[in-house]
């Protein structure tokens, strides 16, 4: 029974993928979209079923499918683990996934390859489910790489544009760098525990602690973190995510905001019992998270591409989540993941709606004044913006505030960084809102003429997500957290006691809100009061230029890593390869030269031949009878 449901959960999207790939063309545009959506909805309902089961019984469900790989000392099975954590992820992956599928039916309607789009989306959902429900690290790794693949396919969906393809390739390779870390982490864990199964590792960790293990464990968790930072776009591997916005907007919403990029957080939460043992690595995670959040937020301040702003905002928010992870507050990170999924998906879809209305225009300098024409979009966008900026009682406020609180308790410096990042977030999000929806429209006349609210299939998901952005915080209210309670079995150590809501806590809340308001205020004065419009690219100067060019990180990577590899490749190709070849030919050339010389010896002169004969005779005799 459970096995078949699990198979249904897994295979529904996969069947959707297959049928869309093979019969998508015959199904027609809407048909393939509906099929794709249905596949995910089925998974969503199965997830709901399991969720109700598990939250009732509190017993995780384990399903053994088949044996997979055998290694020297242990074997890796294809098992499915449905516990509180994976179900939570399943719910929002399939839930938001369903919404975005619905959205895409309309959004991608004009694309000739829409069936492929849905095929890839289904495949993505399939891999994401695999990632989440795998009961050991290697199955997670299948999903991990699989979602990377789908991300590659979807970023490069418009494959005629080589820049998009570049972005796709970059995403895949950056992810692979992380994946190598992940893989090494897996090796070390396999070596230490002779298993990759989460539950078995957990038992091993909880029962015995071996000092020898600890050193290796730090390396393992560090490697795993590298893996996570690849997938979840942390420093130094974050540069692919902004580029990934080349894909269609629903993809950005689903993969590059709500689900895939949170896989790193999922993995670390999954392995919280390991990370708990390695405080050094936790510190690294916290610092990296904090810095990422600040750097990304600062870049977000000056971006003009609507999706780029959202992308940097995503990186920044992910940084905050990693900060929480690093401080051991896994449940807080999970909480933020969920609320972030709601409001960020809403933001992306909203921006998609705007782009849709403007026929592909993404530059905010060419927007403005859309709130009249696109009421639903504006409203939902506003809700989500408030949520991300941390205004109570929207969802983002609670989650972000908890992170800040944890940071305040653990490390003041990190707290300051996170707080600054939050303020920046509020600023650039409202900058985005103002530039897009307020004031006069700055685009062409023709665009203005065609401005329209998006159809129902687009606005419906927006509304659902908008509502979730408002009420999502309810799952973990300070002091009475359902989420913490629900997730308790997952953690090795009980979650941080829900902070006693004392003066400090209220002070912090107030501080956060004030900070957010300051950010909003600055944005308001700049873009509403003074009606500023960001400068054209060529006019940007000073530090803003550095920010606008993302601290030149891409250029630096290009110059320090990619270019040298290319030159090395050319050098090896042109010189070393030919050189090695020449060495081999050199043997031939030597023999050949000898042959040429030898030909001179063979001069046809019989006198010489006889002389050689006598010489040979004499030397043999001499050697045998005189040298002996």
């Amino acid at each position, binding site marked *: 029974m459970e096995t078949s449901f699990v198979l249904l959960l897994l295979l529904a999207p996969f069947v959707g993928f297959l049928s869309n790939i093979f019969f998508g063309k015959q199904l027609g545009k809407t048909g393939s979209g509906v099929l794709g959506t249905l596949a995910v909805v089925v998974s969503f309902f199965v997830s709901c079923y399991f969720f109700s089961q598990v939250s009732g019984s509190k017993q995780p469900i384990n399903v053994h499918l088949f044996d997979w790989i055998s290694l020297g000392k242990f074997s890796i099975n294809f098992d499915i683990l449905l516990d509180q954590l994976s179900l939570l992820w399943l719910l929002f992956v399939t839930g938001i996934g369903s919404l975005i599928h619905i959205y895409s039916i309309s959004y991608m309607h004009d694309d000739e390859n829409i069936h492929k789009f849905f095929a890839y989306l289904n495949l993505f959902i399939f891999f994401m489910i695999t990632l989440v429900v795998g009961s050991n690290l290697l199955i997670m790794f299948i999903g991990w790489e699989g979602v990377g693949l789908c991300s590659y396919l979807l970023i490069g969906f418009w494959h005629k544009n080589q820049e998009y393809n570049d972005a796709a390739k970059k995403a895949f390779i950056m992810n692979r760098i992380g994946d190598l870390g992940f893989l090494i982490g897996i090796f070390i864990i396999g070596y230490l525990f002779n298993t990759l199964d989460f539950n078995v590792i957990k038992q091993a960790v909880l029962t015995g602690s071996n000092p020898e293990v600890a050193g290796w464990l730090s390396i393992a968790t560090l490697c795993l973190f590298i893996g996570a930072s690849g997938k979840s776009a942390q420093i130094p591997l974050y540069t692919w995510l902004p580029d990934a916005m080349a894909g269609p907007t629903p993809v950005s919403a689903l993969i590059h905001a709500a689900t895939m990029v949170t896989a790193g957080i999922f993995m670390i939460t999954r392995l919280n019992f390991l990370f708990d043992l390695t405080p050094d690595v936790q510190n690294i995670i916290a610092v990296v998270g904090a810095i990422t959040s600040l750097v990304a937020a600062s870049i977000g301040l000056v971006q003009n591409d609507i999706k780029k702003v959202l992308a940097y905002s995503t990186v920044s928010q992910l940084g905050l989540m990693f900060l929480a992870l690093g401080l051991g507050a896994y449940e807080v990170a999970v909480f933020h993941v969920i609320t972030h999924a709601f409001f960020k998906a809403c933001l992306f879809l909203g921006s998609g709606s705007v782009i849709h209305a403007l026929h592909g225009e993404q530059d905010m300098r060419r927007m403005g004044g859309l709130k009249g024409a696109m009421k639903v979009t504006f409203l939902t966008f506003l809700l989500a913006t408030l949520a991300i900026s941390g205004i109570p009682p929207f969802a983002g406020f609670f989650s972000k505030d908890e992170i800040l609180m944890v940071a305040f308790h653990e490390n003041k410096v990190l707290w300051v960084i996170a707080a600054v990042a939050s303020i920046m977030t509020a600023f650039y999000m409202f900058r985005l809102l103002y530039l897009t929806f307020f004031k006069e429209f700055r685009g062409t006349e023709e665009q203005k003429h065609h401005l329209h609210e998006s159809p129902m299939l687009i606005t419906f998901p927006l509304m659902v997500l908008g509502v979730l952005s408002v009420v999502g915080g309810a799952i973990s209210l300070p002091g009475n957290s359902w989420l913490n309670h629900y997730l308790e079995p997952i953690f090795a150590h009980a979650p941080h006691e829900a902070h006693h809501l004392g003066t400090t806590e209220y002070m912090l809340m107030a501080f956060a809100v004030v900070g957010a308001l300051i950010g909003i205020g600055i944005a308001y004065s700049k873009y509403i009061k003074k009606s500023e419009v960001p400068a054209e690219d060529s006019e940007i100067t000073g530090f803003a230029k550095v920010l606008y060019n993302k601290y030149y990180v891409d250029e630096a990577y290009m110059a320090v890593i990619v270019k040298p590899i290319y030159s090395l490749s050319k050098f090896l190709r042109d010189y070393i390869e030919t050189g090695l070849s020449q060495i081999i030919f050199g043997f*031939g050339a030597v*023999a*050949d030269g*000898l*042959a*040429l010389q*030898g*030909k001179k010896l*063979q001069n*046809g002169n*019989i006198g*010489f*031949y*006889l002389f*050689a*004969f006598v*010489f*040979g*005779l004499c030397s*043999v*005799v001499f*050697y*045998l*009878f005189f*040298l*002996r």
Partner: protein
Amino acid sequence: MSTIIAIAVLGVVCLLAEIFNLRKAIIPITVAGLLAILGMTVTEFNTTESYYNNMIVVNRFTVAFSSLFILLTLFLVTLSHHFYKNRPSKVSDFIAIKIFLLLGAVAMVSFGNLAMFFLGLEILSISLYILAGSKPLSLKSNEAGMKYFLMGSFASGVILFGIALIYGAVASFDMNMIYEASNSAATGDWFYIGVCMITVGMLFKIAAVPFHFWAPDVYEGAPALTTATMSTLAKVVAMATFFKLNMAMNGNMNFAYETVIVIISIFSMTVGNIMALRQNNIKRMLAFSGISHAGFMLMALLNLSNTTGSLFYYVTAYTLAGIAAFAVILYVCNDKDDESITFFNGLGKNNPVMAAVLSASLLSMAGIPIFSGFFAKFFILNQTLQAGYLILVIAGIINSIISVYYYFKVISAMYTKEPNEAKKPVPFEYYVVAVLAIGLNIAIGLFPSCLMDLL
């Protein structure tokens, strides 16, 4: 014994046939006769006897080698039919000379007395001088004949001097006596100098470095069929005799002597192979290849008690491949002035079977399985390593690598280049000999035991 007599009779019959105007029948008669002699010889296989005061000894060794020589002569005589088509009046001479050459060859391996050895050697050599110079109008043939003659008789003189010295030391030409003398400590230095001179003379005959200079020139200049005779029959006769001499005379062959053989072997292989790299005339190329094969064969001398079988296998493989190759060369270059490799261009297209035969024979010489040349090299190297000469084995290996290059040069010319002339029909005899020889070559490759276990 009866083999020798029968061969002599057959030779006389050839000459008589001319007198009785049976010119057309000469070759069929000879072939039939040789087949009969071959059969007769093979039946003698298990007998061990000596005749005429131990002048002629018949044992497994001599019978095996004699059979091989007869077989080779059979092939060569068959090839003659077409080769001497334009000189019908000389056929009986050429055939008779070949038969007498065979007589000398059989006498050489069957000797029980140095006198017999010397006579056999001279019969063989003189026949070859004649054959080498057998195109009196061709300057090349003249030159080849002259060079071969001068150097050959010089070598004969050296061998004769060696024989005289041995005689001086042993007071007999009988091989048994010599064997005993070689094993006794009292034997004087004369004896060893004599052995040494005979060795050098024989090294000349098998064309080992540095006594090899005649070979390429003579091979190139002599008529192609003569070259075939020299490179197959004459070479292995000399080798077999040399081997037998060593068995008799080097009862306590000392280390220094072995060192000489090792050095000469390495030099022969290396010089032969390297010189062959830059040759454009296929006969000349095969001459150098033959020099390197002589180097390989010399390895057999280092492990005298065990290597008879290996040596026999080696010479069989080598000569069969050589005969097959020469059958193709005769076919291709019959109407040409020389034997440039370019004539082989496109043979694969014009005549796939002949091209395949030549490829197979070259592959066999290069030592590539499943052709018997590989097994031959393997057996010899195996024995050499057993004797402890790793250095020689390595030298042999390196030389095999070098040799691949020039053998494959011909092969790739046959298959990749465009033919520069129209197709021409293959004479039936060439076809038969080529296919038969290479077939035998592959057969002994598949079943090496049938030869290895003979001796």
